[in-house]
């Protein structure tokens, strides 16, 4: 990046200090993501003025109904796609055996389905609560930036693929696997890698990896990548 017009030192110091004061918890991120998924599925009239765990808890059973009904409509594919995504354990740590650690295919263990929220859903977590101790399930990856970092790598790979650079996309997937062998975006990484392999003309490897993917994520929204 070229910095042709640097701010004066006072401003630069203030902006650096300000940047360091922003910390967001994984819990906040999870709350918002679930809220977004509910709103996208249920439409704007439900989304208005509400978010957070309470709304998600309310919406959960509705989503199940919508998911079951979706298959009977013409646009079922679309709704089911979103519903599947909404119900996927996007934040819960995934138990994943890294595939392709060796040339021989290995199994990918899909994560268990997420438990539905209890009736007494936790309150919306404010951003200021980031320093509060979290339940053991989240403590293994309690650094707030871990998930963001995973997302950045996947996003970089996705952008590279969109720009016709499958080798870079594969590099990003490998980097993700190296840094986060049991990461939460393992499903996204595998899907990216498979598309990148196809784009690079390595269809044999793409096919074997896709077979593993389907076994690990039979209900993936990506279908058969």
């Amino acid at each position, binding site marked *: 990046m070229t910095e042709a017009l640097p701010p004066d030192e006072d401003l630069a110091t203030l902006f650096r200090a300000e940047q360091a004061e922003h910390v967001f918890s994984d819990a906040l991120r999870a709350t918002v*993501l679930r809220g*977004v998924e509910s709103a996208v599925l249920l439409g704007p009239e439900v989304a208005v003025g509400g978010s957070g765990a309470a709304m998600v808890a309310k919406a959960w059973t509705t989503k199940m109904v919508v998911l079951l009904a979706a298959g009977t409509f013409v646009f079922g594919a679309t709704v089911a796609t979103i519903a599947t995504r909404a119900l996927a354990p996007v934040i819960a740590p995934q138990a994943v055996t890294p595939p392709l650690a060796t040339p021989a295919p290995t199994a990918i263990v899909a994560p268990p389905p997420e438990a539905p929220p209890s009736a007494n859903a936790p309150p919306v977590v404010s951003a200021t609560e980031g320093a509060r101790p979290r339940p053991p399930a989240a403590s293994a990856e309690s650094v707030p930036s871990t998930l963001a970092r995973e*997302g950045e790598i996947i996003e970089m790979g996705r952008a590279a693929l969109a720009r016709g650079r499958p080798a870079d996309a594969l590099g990003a997937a490998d980097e993700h696997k190296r840094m986060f062998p049991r990461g939460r975006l393992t499903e996204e990484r595998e899907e990216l890698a498979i598309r990148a392999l196809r784009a690079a003309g390595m269809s044999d490897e793409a096919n074997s990896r896709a077979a593993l993917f389907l076994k690990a994520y039979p209900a993936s929204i990506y279908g058969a990548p």
Partner: protein
Amino acid sequence: MTTCETKASALDRASAHGFRAFFVANFDFVCKTLRRLGVIDADLADVAQEVFVVAHRSFSTYDPERSAKTWLFAFARGYASNYRRLGWHRRAEMPDSARASSQRLLQKLDARAKVALGLAALDDEKTTVLVLHDMEGLSAAEIARDLGVPLNTVYTRIRAAREAFKMALAEEAL
């Protein structure tokens, strides 16, 4: 389901896939932006959700060649503006930044509050360039490309934004 497996649904699937990674990669940026534009922490989850819901609905228009930050900033700015206009914040106490009126108080404000205070004095164009360029590290060329304005215009806005920002803090300190 095979009859439904149209090109459109394949596209839906692709964008659903991209959106999750997109959300994770940009969540912190959206939250930072909302705070900078006056959203208090108690409302952050609600407003961030609104931003990402509308981003999801518009995701097909997102061009990965361009900066996600510039794209999302426009949504965040709009929702933060509604938030202030509609007075959502009245259900909670305003941050100190809005009440600072003395040198002593201003010195005590943390950097976050100072930035929010300074940005509140800027118009949309200046706010956009100051956040994206000086705080988020986008280059002037990237901003010019993403906003579709000449590079010189971006430079002009950056200079004007810094001046107005510093003046706002100085006035508050009187």
